[in-house]
C-alpha cells in the first residue's frame, strides 16, 4: 500500500479549498503518484539536479551506503570512452563530440558539436569517480547518442526555454565552449517563463539560482536520503506537469524511452540484479510517465540507427563562467555551488569520491568506507513533513561572514576601491539586515553580494572589476579546467612535443612570448615552421607573430611569437579531430578547398602558395597546380582575373628564382591561361558585367606572360585576333582597347594621341573623358610602356577639363589608385617624376614636352657627337647623313666641331714649343704631324 495516502487526501482537501477542484487536484495528486511510482521502482532511481551541491552530497552518501555494482547515467551513450580520460584533467572540463562533415544532417549545421561539462561538485562526477575507481563496478551511459541529439533536433523544434538570468555580456572565459550544443545531466527549471517569474516574485529573489538555493538546496543539504529523493522527484513532477500545453514533452519522453530500453537491454545481457544497480537521472526524468518506465515494462521502443556522420570525441577545457553562460545560469552561481559543496562536505564529514590522479582541488582521501552496504528501509512518507514545516535554516555563521567581509574589503582595495575597515563593518551589518528583511537568519552569498555592492560600490568602478564580480571571485571564483597531456588528441600532443625546444610552458593560461634567433639557433627552424602552420590553421590570436613573416622568397632571421595555446586549448583539441598532425590537417584542408564545387583558379593558386610556404611537398604542390589548371580551363567568368594574375606572377617569380626549370603545371597554367583569356577577351570587352579591372588583368596576363606562352607553343595571332574582335562600348574599355592595340603595334602612338586630343576637343564627349582616363589608368598594368602617354593624357585632362566634369571623377581616380596601389602607382609616379620638374622655380619655366610651342621653341637637342675617327669620317663625307636626315624629315645641319677646351692653355703652349715628343708618337701611329697636333690638343 502506498505510504502517501494521507498526503494525497490532504492535498485533495487543499485543492478543494482553493476552488480549482478538478485541475488543481489532478496536478497535486498526480505529483504524489509520480513520487510513489518512482520510489516503488525496482531499479533505484537517483534524481539529480545539475550543479546542485545537495545532489552531489546525497550521491556521495548514497554510494557509500549502497555500493551499487552498476550505475546507469543520463549521458550520451557514445561519450562513454571519454570518462576514463577525466582523471588526466583538471576539472571543469567538457566531454565533446564533434563532427566536421555532417552526413545525414543538413550541411548548414556543420560543424556539429555537443558538449557535456563535468564539474567536481556534481552528482554525476561522484558517480563516475566511484564507478571508475571501484573494481567490479560498471558505469553505463544510457541517454541517446550525440547523433540522435541532432536527429531529434531536426524532428522537433526546441521549446521556448526561459531566458538567461544574465545578459550575455560574457567575459573571455565564458566563450570556452564556442557554439556547441550543451547537454546537462539533470536540467531542472520551470518549463515556462510565467511559472519561473511567479516563483521568483513570491520567493523574493532575483534569479533562478537564488530561488533554488533558498528553497531546495539549503533545506535539502542536511536532509536524509529518503527525503532528498522524494522532494527531488516531487519538484521534477511539478515542473513536468506545469508545462505550457504548446511545449513539447516528446523529446524528453523519447529520451526516457531510450534510457529505459537501454537499461533493460543491459540488465538482460549481463543478468545484473536490478537491486544492486542505480539509475542516475535528472529529477525531471525520474517523474516520467512513459510506458517504457520500469524494468518490468515490456513496451518496445525502436531506437533509430545513427546517421553516417563520423563523430570525433575528446575533452575540452571548460569553466564555471562558460557553464553559466551556456545554460543561462546567473553569473557566479556555479562557483557558489562549488563553494557550498566544499562547505557541506566539511560540515557533514562525508568523504567525496575522486578519481585517482585527478589534478587540482583536494587530495584524494586515503580513508575508504569499508562498511557493509546499508539495508534500505521501506519508503515512508517524508514529503508531508517537508511540505508542512518551514525549512530549518542555518543559523548565522558569524565567523564565516566576517571572513568574507574582511577579505572582500582587501580585494576591493587591491582593485582600486577606497574601501576600509569601516566598509567591512558596514557590509557585515548590511548583510545581516538584508537577510533579516528577506526572512533568513543567515545571509546567503547573494545577500552578502547585495550588501557589498550597497556599501562599497560608489558612482564609478575604479578598476576592471566591479564589486559584484569581486564577490564572485571571493566566493570561489571562476575555475577554469585544463585537459591533461595524456587526454589530448594525438595532434595536440604532437604540437606540444614539437614546440618543446622553445622551452616554454605552453599549458599556462597566460600568453607566452617565444623569441627565436633562427640564424644563431637553426634547431628552432622546425618550431618556426610549425608555428606558421598553426597560424594558418588556428583562428584568432592563438598563435600570433609579432616579428617575422612568411612569404614566397622571404626568410625571417629572427622571429617573435605570442602563444596562447594554454588559453585556447579548445581550438587545438578541435584541430585534433581533423587529423594526426598539423601538416596532415593543412593538406586535407587545402585539398578540400580546391575540390570544393565553388573553388576557382585563384583559390587553387592560393592553395599552391600555401603548400609551398608551409608544406614544401613538391608532389602535393604539383597536384594542386594541376587542379588550378583544370579550374582555370573550366572557368566561364573572369571575375578572379586580377587575383589569378597577381598570384601567377608571384609563383612564376618564385620558381624562376629558385628552380632551374618551371614545373610542368606552371607551364600548362600559362599556356592554358593564354589560350583561355584570348578566347574570353572579346566577350569580356563587351560584357557589361565584367569590370575594367578584370579586362586589364586579362591583358596583363596576356602581355606579361606572352613570351613564355609563345615559347610553349601558343600563337601570337590568337591574341591579335582577339583584340581585333573586341568592340567595346564603355569608354573605359575603349581606352583599354586602344592601349592594347598600341601595345600590339596595331595603333601608332601618334594615332593614340590624336584620338585623345579629339576626345578633349569634342564638347559632346568631354563629360565622359574621365571614364576614358579610368581605362588608361588601368592600362598601366598590361602596357607599362604607355606610361608617358597616360601621364600626358592625364595632364591634358587636368589642364583642360572643366571642374564640373573633373571633380566628380577625382574620388574615383583616388580610390582606384589606392586599391591597386601596388601595381599602378609606382609606374605612374615614376613617369610623372620624369616628366614634371622637380623644383618649384623650374616649374615656372617648364613647358610640357608634348606642347607644340615646346617643340618649336627648342630645337632638337642632340648630344655632342663623340669625337673620334667615325665622326671625322662622317664630317668629311656628309652626303650620306644628309640623305638619311632628309628621309626622316629633319633639316640637314652639322655641329661645329668642338673647340679645344680653354682650361689647358699652358699644356697646349708647352706641347707646341716642344713638338718632338708628339711627332715621335705620331710616327709610331704612322700618322701625319698635323694629325698628331690635333690629337695633342685634346685633353
Amino acid at each position: 500500500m502506498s505510504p502517501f495516502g494521507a498526503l494525497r487526501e490532504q492535498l485533495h482537501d487543499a485543492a478543494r479549498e482553493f476552488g480549482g477542484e478538478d485541475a488543481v487536484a489532478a496536478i497535486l495528486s498526480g505529483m504524489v503518484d509520480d513520487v510513489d511510482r518512482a520510489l516503488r521502482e525496482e531499479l533505484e532511481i537517483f534524481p539529480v539536479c545539475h550543479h546542485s551541491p545537495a545532489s552531489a552530497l546525497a550521491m556521495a552518501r548514497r554510494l557509500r551506503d549502497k555500493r551499487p555494482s552498476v550505475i546507469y547515467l543520463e549521458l550520451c551513450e557514445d561519450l562513454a570512452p571519454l570518462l576514463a580520460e577525466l582523471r588526466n584533467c583538471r576539472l571543469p572540463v567538457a566531454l565533446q563530440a564533434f563532427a566536421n562533415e555532417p552526413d545525414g544532417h543538413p550541411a548548414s549545421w556543420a560543424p556539429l558539436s555537443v558538449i557535456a561539462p563535468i564539474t567536481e561538485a556534481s552528482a554525476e562526477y561522484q558517480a563516475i569517480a566511484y564507478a571508475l575507481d571501484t573494481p567490479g563496478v560498471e558505469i553505463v551511459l544510457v541517454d541517446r547518442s550525440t547523433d540522435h541529439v541532432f536527429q531529434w533536433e531536426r524532428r522537433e523544434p526546441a521549446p521556448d526555454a526561459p531566458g538567461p538570468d544574465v545578459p550575455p555580456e560574457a567575459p573571455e572565459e565564458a566563450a570556452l565552449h564556442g557554439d556547441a550544443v550543451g547537454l546537462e545531466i539533470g536540467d531542472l527549471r520551470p518549463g515556462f517563463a510565467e511559472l519561473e517569474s511567479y516563483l521568483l516574485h513570491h520567493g523574493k529573489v532575483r534569479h533562478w539560482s537564488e530561488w533554488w538555493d533558498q528553497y531546495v538546496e539549503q533545506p535539502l543539504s542536511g536532509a536524509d536520503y529518503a527525503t532528498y529523493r522524494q522532494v527531488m522527484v516531487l519538484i521534477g513532477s511539478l515542473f513536468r506537469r506545469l508545462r505550457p500545453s504548446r511545449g513539447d514533452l516528446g523529446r524528453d519522453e523519447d529520451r526516457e524511452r531510450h534510457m529505459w530500453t537501454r537499461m533493460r537491454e543491459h540488465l538482460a545481457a549481463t543478468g545484473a540484479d536490478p537491486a544492486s544497480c542505480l539509475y542516475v537521472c535528472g529529477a525531471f526524468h525520474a517523474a516520467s510517465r512513459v510506458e517504457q518506465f520500469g524494468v518490468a515494462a515490456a513496451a518496445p521502443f525502436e531506437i533509430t540507427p545513427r546517421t553516417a556522420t563520423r563523430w570525433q570525441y575528446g575533452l575540452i577545457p571548460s569553466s564555471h563562467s562558460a557553464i553559466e553562460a551556456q545554460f543561462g545560469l546567473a553569473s557566479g552561481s556555479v562557483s557558489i555551488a562549488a563553494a557550498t559543496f566544499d562547505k557541506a562536505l566539511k560540515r557533514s564529514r562525508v568523504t567525496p569520491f575522486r578519481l585517482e590522479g585527478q589534478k587540482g582541488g583536494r587530495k584524494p582521501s586515503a580513508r575508504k568506507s569499508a562498511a557493509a552496504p546499508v539495508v534500505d528501509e521501506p519508503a515512508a512518507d517524508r514529503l508531508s513533513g517537508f511540505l508542512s514545516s518551514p525549512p530549518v535554516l542555518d543559523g548565522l555563521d558569524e565567523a564565516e561572514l566576517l571572513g568574507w567581509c574582511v577579505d572582500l574589503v582587501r580585494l576591493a582595495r587591491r582593485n582600486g576601491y577606497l574601501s576600509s575597515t569601516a566598509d567591512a563593518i558596514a557590509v557585515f551589518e548590511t548583510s545581516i539586515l538584508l537577510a533579516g528583511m528577506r526572512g533568513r537568519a543567515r545571509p546567503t552569498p547573494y545577500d552578502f553580494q547585495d550588501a557589498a555592492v550597497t556599501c562599497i560600490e560608489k558612482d564609478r568602478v575604479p578598476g576592471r572589476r566591479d564589486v559584484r564580480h569581486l564577490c564572485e571571485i571571493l566566493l570561489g571564483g571562476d575555475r577554469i579546467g585544463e585537459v591533461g597531456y595524456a587526454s589530448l588528441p594525438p595532434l595536440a600532443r604532437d604540437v606540444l612535443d614539437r614546440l618543446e625546444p622553445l622551452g616554454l610552458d605552453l599549458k599556462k593560461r597566460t600568453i607566452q612570448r617565444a623569441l627565436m634567433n633562427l640564424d644563431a639557433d637553426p634547431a628552432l627552424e622546425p618550431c618556426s615552421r610549425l608555428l606558421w602552420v598553426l597560424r594558418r590553421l588556428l583562428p584568432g590570436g592563438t598563435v600570433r607573430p609579432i616579428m617575422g613573416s612568411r612569404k614566397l622568397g622571404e626568410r625571417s632571421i629572427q622571429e617573435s611569437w605570442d602563444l596562447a595555446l594554454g588559453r585556447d586549448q579548445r581550438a587545438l583539441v578541435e584541430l585534433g579531430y581533423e587529423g594526426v598532425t598539423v601538416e596532415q590537417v593543412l593538406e586535407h584542408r587545402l585539398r578540400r578547398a580546391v575540390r570544393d564545387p565553388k573553388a576557382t583558379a585563384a583559390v587553387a593558386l592560393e592553395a599552391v602558395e600555401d603548400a609551398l610556404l608551409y608544406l614544401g611537398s613538391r608532389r602535393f604542390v604539383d597536384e594542386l597546380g594541376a587542379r588550378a589548371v583544370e579550374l582555370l580551363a573550366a572557368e566561364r567568368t573572369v571575375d578572379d582575373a586580377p587575383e589569378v594574375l597577381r598570384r601567377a606572377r608571384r609563383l612564376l617569380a618564385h620558381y624562376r628564382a629558385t628552380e632551374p626549370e618551371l614545373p610542368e603545371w606552371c607551364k600548362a597554367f600559362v599556356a592554358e591561361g593564354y589560350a583561355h583569356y584570348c578566347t574570353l577577351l572579346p566577350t569580356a570587352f563587351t560584357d557589361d558585367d565584367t569590370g575594367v579591372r578584370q579586362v586589364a588583368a586579362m591583358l596583363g596576363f596576356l602581355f606579361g606572360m606572352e613570351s613564355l606562352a609563345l615559347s610553349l607553343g601558343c600563337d601570337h595571332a590568337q591574341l591579335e585576333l582577339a583584340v581585333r574582335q573586341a568592340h567595346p562600348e564603355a569608354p573605359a574599355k575603349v581606352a583599354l582597347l586602344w592601349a592594347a592595340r598600341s601595345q600590339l603595334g596595331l595603333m601608332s602612338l601618334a594615332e593614340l594621341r590624336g584620338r585623345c586630343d579629339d576626345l578633349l576637343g569634342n564638347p559632346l564627349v568631354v563629360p565622359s573623358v574621365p571614364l576614358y582616363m579610368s581605362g588608361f589608368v588601368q592600362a598601366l598594368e598590361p602596357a607599362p610602356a604607355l606610361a608617358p602617354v597616360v601621364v600626358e593624357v592625364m595632364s591634358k585632362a587636368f589642364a583642360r577639363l572643366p571642374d564640373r566634369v573633373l571633380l566628380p571623377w577625382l574620388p574615383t581616380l583616388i580610390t582606384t589608385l589606392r586599391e591597386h596601389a601596388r601595381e599602378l602607382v609606382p609606374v605612374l609616379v615614376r613617369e610623372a617624376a620624369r616628366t614634371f620638374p622637380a623644383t618649384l622655380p623650374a616649374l615656372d619655366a617648364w613647358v610640357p614636352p608634348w606642347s607644340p610651342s615646346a617643340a618649336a621653341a627648342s630645337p632638337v637637342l642632340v648630344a655632342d657627337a663623340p669625337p673620334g675617327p667615325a665622326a671625322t669620317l662622317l664630317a668629311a663625307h656628309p652626303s650620306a647623313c644628309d640623305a638619311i636626315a632628309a628621309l626622316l624629315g629633319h633639316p640637314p645641319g652639322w655641329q661645329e666641331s668642338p673647340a679645344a677646351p680653354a682650361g689647358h692653355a699652358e699644356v697646349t703652349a708647352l706641347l707646341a714649343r716642344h713638338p718632338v715628343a708628339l711627332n715621335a708618337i705620331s710616327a709610331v701611329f704612322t700618322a701625319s704631324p698635323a694629325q698628331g697636333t690635333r690629337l695633342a690638343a685634346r685633353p
Partner: protein
Amino acid sequence: MTDDMLRAPAEVKYAEELDWLESVDDAPKPFSWRLSPKMVRLFVLGSEPSDGLDREIPQKWFGDRSFVERSIVTLASDRGLLLIGDPGTGKSWLAELLSAAISRNSTLVVQGTAGTTEDHIKYSWNVSMVIAKGQSRASMIPSPIMTAMEGGVIGRFEELTRSTSDVQDALISILSEKYVSIPELDDDNIVFAKPGFSIIATANSRDRGVNDLSSALKRRFNFVRVPVVTNKRSEAEIVRFRTAELLRRHRIELEVPPSLLDILLQSFADLRAAAASATGDDDRLESALSTAEQIGVLEDAILHSQFFGDRALTARTLGGSLVGSLARRSPEDLAILNKFWHGVVEPRSKKDGADPSWQGFLEGGRQAISTLS
C-alpha cells in the same frame, strides 16, 4: 486636508494607510522608526496575498525589489543613502516614500542648487532677533537637516551634486559625528542627532563631473543606482499610476485608452533605441526619455484635451504633445523627431492590422512638427 494642497506629501496622502500599517506592525523597529523595515518595503512596493494582510496596499514605486531593500537597510545602518540615476527615474519619489514610511515626515528637504550655502545645511540667524536679543537658540533658524537631527527623523537633500563641493562637505561632520556645533553660542551650543536620523540624498547621474563628491563624503554614503525602467510592463504600470494621480489632482474625469498608452510606450522605446545607437549629441534628443517624461507627455495631452479639446484623449493630441514636449532644440530635436515620424511612426501606421490610433498619432505629430519648424 489633502484637498487644500496642490500636491500633498506622501505622509499626508497615505496617512490612513500608514496608520493602519503601524497598527498591525508588530515586528521590531530600528531606532525611532514608525514602521519595521519589512513594512516599509511593503508600503513602497505594495502587498501580495502571501503577505497575509487584511487589506491591499497598492504599489507606489515601481522598480527592482532589491533597490528598495538596499535603501531601507542603508537607512537602518550608520550611513546616509544616496540615490543616483538619470533624471526622471523616480529617485525623489522613492526618497519621499521612504521618509514618509520611516518617520512620517518627508518635508525636511534641502534643495541643492548652485546657490546653496552651508547655512542651508546647518543653521542661519534671524538677523532682527539677533539685533534685538543677541545670539541665542531662539534667534537661530535651524535648517531642515538640523530639524531632522533634533527630531530623529529622515532629512532629505535633493540634487546633492548641484551644490558646490565645500557646501557638500558640510554633511561630512553631520554624517560622522552626528552633531552640529554652534560656536556662536556659549552654552547649549551642540545639536545632537537623535536615533533614527539619517539622510537621503539624490543625485543626477547626468550631472557627474559638475561638482563631484569628495572621497570623504562618498564613504559616508551608500550609493544605490536607480536605472531607467526599460521593462515595458513596469513602465506601463508607472505611467498608469502616476497619470491617475495627476488626473485626480486636476480633478479631471478622463479615460486614457490602453491603445494610446501602448503607442506612447512604444514610441518612447523606439526613441530610446534610436538614442542608444546615435553617435553624437546632435543625433540624440536632449530629453533623457525617462518615464517621468512620458508622464509629462501624457499629462500635457490630457490637459490639452480637457481644456481645448472635446474632453476625450485622442491619438492626434498625444502625437502633438509628444512632439511639443520633446522638441527642445531647434533644429536638432525637430530634425530627429521628423526623421522618427517618417521612418518609424509612418510605417507603423501603415502596417496591416495596425491600430487605427497610429494614423491619428502620425497626423498629430506631423502637424506639430510643421508648426514648430
